[in-house]
């Protein structure tokens, strides 16, 4: 057996060089030329793609090529409060605990101008407790607050027009309307009292300024209104140019930097 296989091996060995030489001769022939051309073209194409490719700018579509400053938005950062028409000056805050007597010191409710007290019109009117769409007055109010089940007199009081009332019928002044809202929105009311829901200013180690629910949520349409965002930060590739420009400006008219 051993000799047999040895013979076989020898036979194989003698054939192999012959085959290789044949292949090598094929390779030496002109068949290599198209192969070379194809690979050269491929390499060239890859190089061309790399060289001609535009840099990838993520989130294209927004230029973000200008550096804005807070001074460009006087409406937001001027003397005006962040919430239009809100005057927090009447709520005094100071450092240290037990600084304020009121439990939830809030600014005045944000009434439309000239609408309060309601009795200035309603005092002489016959109250009509029937649920109906209003046609003569308050037509600007569109109720989007569980309007299927609720209407004006579920919150506003029929007898004392200058007050609200709880579902129990107990009266609630407009300045404590959070008690009314809290009847349905219990978790928000709990968080609001702790300062977690809603905006709170003042002192972290002292008394705080609360806001009424209605300072941020229109009670008739409470979904928070969308805002226009301030502009995006400048992309780094434009910032470099700005740095050059500011260096040039510096020579002529820089005020703040030395």
């Amino acid at each position, binding site marked *: 057996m051993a000799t047999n296989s040895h013979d076989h091996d020898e036979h194989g060995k003698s054939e192999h060089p012959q085959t290789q030489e044949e292949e090598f001769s094929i390779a030496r022939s002109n068949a290599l030329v198209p192969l070379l051309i194809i690979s050269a073209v491929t390499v060239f194409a890859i190089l061309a793609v790399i060289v001609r490719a535009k840099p990838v700018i993520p989130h294209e579509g927004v230029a973000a090529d200008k550096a*804005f400053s807070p001074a460009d938005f006087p409406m937001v950062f001027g003397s005006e409060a962040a919430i239009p028409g809100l005057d927090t000056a009447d709520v005094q805050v100071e450092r240290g605990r037990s600084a304020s007597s009121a439990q939830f010191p809030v600014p005045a409710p944000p009434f439309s101008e000239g609408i309060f007290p309601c009795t200035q019109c309603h005092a002489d009117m016959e109250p009509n407790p029937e649920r109906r769409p209003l046609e003569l007055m308050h037509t600007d109010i569109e109720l989007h607050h569980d309007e299927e089940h609720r209407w004006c007199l579920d919150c506003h009081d029929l007898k004392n027009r200058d007050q609200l009332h709880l579902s129990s019928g107990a009266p609630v002044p407009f300045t404590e309307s959070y008690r009314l809202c809290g009847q349905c929105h219990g978790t928000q009311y709990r968080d609001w009292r*702790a*300062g*977690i*829901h809603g905006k709170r200013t003042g002192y972290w180690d002292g008394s705080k300024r609360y806001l009424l629910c209605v300072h*941020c949520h229109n009670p008739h349409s409470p979904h928070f209104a969308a805002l226009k*965002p301030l502009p995006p930060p400048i992309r780094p590739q434009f910032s470099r140019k700005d740095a050059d420009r500011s260096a040039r400006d510096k020579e002529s008219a820089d005020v703040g930097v030395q």
Partner: protein
Amino acid sequence: MSGCSDPLACAEEKEEAGGLKRRDFLTAVGVVAAGFLAGCTPEVREEFFQKHFLELSQEELDRRMQRLHDDYSKRFGQEVSVSALPAQPGVVFGYALDLSRCIGCRRCVYACVKENNQSRDPQIQWIRVLEMDKAKGIDFEEANPYYDHEKVPDPDHFYLPVACQQCRTPQCTQVCPVGATWQEPDGIVVIDYDWCIGCRYCMAACPYGARHFNWGEPHLPTNELNPNTHALGNRPRPRGVVEKCTFCIQRVRSGRYPACVEICPVGARKFGNLLDKDGEVSRILRDKRVFVLKAELKTDPKFYYFYGL
């Protein structure tokens, strides 16, 4: 060539040929330097040999604050107060941000710039609001800081503002080769702008991109300066130093809320003392489900995100 075989001897020969020996040259440099330092004012000398901020005695600290006050007041043409108010005992500051409320309006970004005297051009902003796809969740690769919609919030996206996370084990302070940045007893990570050499190791170490470098001369118009400053916070910075959010150190150390908390129109930002059990942030940590960014890095931030809804 003279053909000297020993290179050392050869060098000496050359020096002598130049007419100035190394020893003489170094002596001359030393004499000139000493003469310069002897001749200049004590203020310049003190500035040159200044100690690390934490090593200053109260008297030296007062002198340095006075000098900063004089310099800035002269430069900006108005009274600029520079405070070095230290941390209160029993206070560790914490921050919580309600992701279910944030609408991405960027009021905080610009309120921060206004409060903290960042360079307007080249622009530096400490807060970056990332817009994320609701379908993808929190994904920093896909997050877009350059969104600009007509109105926010965009119904398909949510918003995640990122600034310094005020880590309990900050990486940035550990890599600083000169000790120019450290954590204060009330937990605020601060930078001494006089000590910073601008190597930007801290920026490489920070996993939140919260540190920013003054590549150019900071441009801050005189009429936009906030004159209430803190030495380790919002005082105007020179070129070539790193800066970052300090929880508005100039405000919070005197009991006020950071500027971003006060401007936020939706009340998404909450700030307080973590050691105060009745404080807003402690209550949020107790009652809400909070998370921190990149918790796996064990930086242990004091900036928490939560869903208030």
